[in-house]
């Protein structure tokens, strides 16, 4: 009887994982059929933020480093797309991604090299300060970056130019097609992230997070791992920025401003940073919460700030964390019953 009780939860967790993901995927895939264009667009933004938060959480949840400068990578992705358009006339979404990611990787590698020599508070301060270098560059070099007006990015072509959105009816077609495109990229990147955190590399990161001394004494080179995590994290968040700008149609320095980094931290915490799916839930939920907050009151920052404080006080493990605690209690009570 006892052996069964120990074995079952394991079997169940895997099953729940696959079942839950499959159901979630089916639901997400059928959304445009049931809701209007506006909601579809909103959910697209939500998925984009989910990617950003997933990337961010590689550093926080899995490596134990809290960055307050991830707006830099998101904005870097967005601006790179704008530059590719402006200087090279590129319209292809695939090229945006293929060319934007290496740029982000290089910048993350550079900034990461400076930042991972520090930990905890100083790391956070440094990531914030360095991200603002990019912000001030975007603002000051207005003849390149459009300054505070930003740069426009019209609808791209998808699937190597096979799909474009010119002509009448282009907008609704774009919204629906782009939703599926982003969903596809989201599924792919979530799968990649899942694999990374469950790989030996991912286990090593978690070990370093849990106990740096012990990790060093099984032979792990701490700084190297942290730097690698930083690089991957920044590149992932940049992908979100790349996907975001064609939908938004415009990139401005606001997306590099540090309060946006705070929003990324917020959404990750909202979903829960100790779970894999937390950032996904948080990214989508935050997008909807913020949109409705902005729509309902002029003082949406006040609302969001209060939500954040209450959240940190009452639900430190976020939505997913709270749900999993509830389900554990239900499961435990079932075990006692049997």
């Amino acid at each position, binding site marked *: 009887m006892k052996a069964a009780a120990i074995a079952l939860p394991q079997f169940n967790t895997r099953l729940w994982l696959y079942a839950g993901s499959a159901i979630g995927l089916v639901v997400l895939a059928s959304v445009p059929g049931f809701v209007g264009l506006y909601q579809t667009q909103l959910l697209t933004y939500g998925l984009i933020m989910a990617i950003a938060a997933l990337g961010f959480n590689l550093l926080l949840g899995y490596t134990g480093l809290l960055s307050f400068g991830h707006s830099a990578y998101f904005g870097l992705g967005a601006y790179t797309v704008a530059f590719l358009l402006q200087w090279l006339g590129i319209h292809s979404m695939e090229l945006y991604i293929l060319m934007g990611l290496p740029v982000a990787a290089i910048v993350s590698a550079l900034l990461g090299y400076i930042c991972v020599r520090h930990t*905890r508070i*100083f790391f956070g301060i*440094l990531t914030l*300060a360095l991200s603002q270098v990019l912000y*001030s560059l975007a603002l000051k*070099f207005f003849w390149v970056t459009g300054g505070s007006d930003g740069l426009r990015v019209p609808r791209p072509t998808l699937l190597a130019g096979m799909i474009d959105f010119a002509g009448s009816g282009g907008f609704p077609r774009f919204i629906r097609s782009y939703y599926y495109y982003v969903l596809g990229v989201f599924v792919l990147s979530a799968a990649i992230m899942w694999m990374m955190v469950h790989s030996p590399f991912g286990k090593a990161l978690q070990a370093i997070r849990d106990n740096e001394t012990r990790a060093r004494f099984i032979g792990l080179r701490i700084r190297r791992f942290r730097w690698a995590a930083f690089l991957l994290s920044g590149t992932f968040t940049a992908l979100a920025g790349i996907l975001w700008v064609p939908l938004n149609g415009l990139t401005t320095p606001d997306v590099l401003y540090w309060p946006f980094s705070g929003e990324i931290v917020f959404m990750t915490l909202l979903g829960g940073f100790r779970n894999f799916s937390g950032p996904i839930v948080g990214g989508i939920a935050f997008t909807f919460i913020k949109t409705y907050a902005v729509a309902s009151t002029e*003082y949406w920052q*006040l609302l969001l*700030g209060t939500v954040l*404080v209450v959240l940190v006080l009452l639900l430190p493990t976020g939505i997913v964390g709270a749900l999993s605690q509830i389900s554990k209690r239900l499961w435990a009570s079932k075990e006692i019953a049997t």
Partner: protein
Amino acid sequence: MSILAVQLLNSLFYASVLFLIAAGLSLIFGVMRIVNLAHGSLFAVGAYIAAWLVGRAIGFGVPVIWLLLVIPVAALAVALIGIVIEPLLLRPFYRRAEEYQLLVTFGLLLILEDLMRLVWGGLPLTADTVMDAMPVVHIGGLVYPGYNILVIAIGMAAAVALWLLIYETKFGVLLRATSQDRRMAAALGLNVGLVYVAAFAIGCFMAGLGGAIVVPSHAAVLGMGVEALVLAFVVVVVGGLGSLKGALVGALIVSFVRTAGIQFFPEVELAVLYLIAAAVLIARPTGLFGTA
């Protein structure tokens, strides 16, 4: 020659304001090991309260020279806000991980920014009258506001006062003891909770004072706090977090680099600043005098 003198004075003016903000941040970190992301917003609140008080005082026909009293009053108001914030929002998190503290202060930032918008609206709030009321100084052939010199004097006085408080008073001993070893201090019978509130209040006072002295020169605008925090961070990155000397030296360096930058490389003045900060970090990873 006189232009150089003016630039020097401008740098010192800017440094005084930066010092006040950074010193407050460093003090709070040094004693409580908290970085308050809303610190810049408290600076902004100080500016808004000061400008608002000036406006009301003028409305009541208060003679202009009394308006200078608004400055310490505004700073005290911010300190009072700090006394309310600490037990409500910060105390529940001392036992928790640092991440949560940063998050809760970020939430506080959002709340404060919108409260300022709610109370004072979206238009800039000025206090020019105070500046105009002060006599001008003649430097070479140039005319320079005497108010700026007052600000520099206030900055220097604050530095001296803080130094005296921390190193020469009994309360300063309490502060230093608590910052070095909180549990030991509690074991020795020190009321750590009280020390924390006091330290936080002093830090907020400094931020509010910074806002109050800058507003006659630069109007209070929404978002000034968010901007100020980044600069305060650069100051502590250069000077070191948790050190009074660091805040002073950092503020001076940042200020002079910025002034020189604006003069000679106006587009990249901030980038030059960050470059200097990066150089300091490579040489001394915790900043020049850091304890972090």
